[in-house]
């Protein structure tokens, strides 16, 4: 009998290039997919959704998705919603900053130690969403 392929949570950062917050979304995603939950999560290139790549659209419809956005434009969330992906949760780095006002992110190219802390806090939120089976 063929083994059924286990579905994974797809973590999708906006990766915005204009602000440090975009880099934090990216770092958050790698913390989750490479360190904290490598067996339960995966990621995709968001630009593939923007160009309506069929395989990528199929992937977000077949797996639960968690988006990580830097700013209010919420590009990752909107791209997933546009393609009727299974959105399980969405994180905004702006909210994480509001909850941790003493942490000041660095720059786009170097988010700095506070940016790293913000990414870890956002990653914890994702771990919680993945753990929530409801």
């Amino acid at each position, binding site marked *: 009998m063929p083994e059924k392929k286990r579905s994974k949570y797809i973590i999708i950062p*906006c*990766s915005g290039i*204009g602000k440090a917050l975009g880099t934090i979304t*990216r*770092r958050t995603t790698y913390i989750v997919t490479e360190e904290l939950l490598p067996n339960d999560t995966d990621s995709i290139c968001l630009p593939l959704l*923007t160009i309506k790549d069929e395989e990528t659209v199929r992937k977000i419809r077949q797996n639960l998705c968690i988006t990580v956005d830097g700013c209010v*434009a919420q*590009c990752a969330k909107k791209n997933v919603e546009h393609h009727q992906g299974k959105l399980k949760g969405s994180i905004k780095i702006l909210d994480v900053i509001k909850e941790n006002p003493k942490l000041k992110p660095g720059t786009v190219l170097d988010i700095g130690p506070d940016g790293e802390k913000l990414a870890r806090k956002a990653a914890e939120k994702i771990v919680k969403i993945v753990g929530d089976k409801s």
Partner: protein
Amino acid sequence: MKIKPKIGLISCSGEGLPEGMISRVGTRRILEERDDVVTICLPLFLAGGQEERDFAKNNPCITVDGCRKMCAAKSVKMYGKVHPKSSIVISDIIEKNKDEKPKSKSKIEPDDEKLVQDTMKIITKEIGKVKEEKE
């Protein structure tokens, strides 16, 4: 006084491949060095409004893609209804210059620096060509 449009520099910043990190860092460094280029976050083409979709119409664009799927170049065509003035692909640079393939998706390793520098040189050259064409 007519305001001259700037050159749009659009990186794929693809999260899934190390080449996406190179496109992102190479593009961002150029943006920080020069004042004649502007950018847009690529997913805003879909998530944004008409103003974002018109970005490529209003600014001649150079795209910097990690792989041959060329999401940035395709986005310009799909949403801006124009062709990019120039399309740079990191995997092509690696092949042409016999650069070391990047290994990390999440950071630039010291071994990747030559590839980033090669990418920046090509972007700078293409900006020069687009400016010459405009004048």
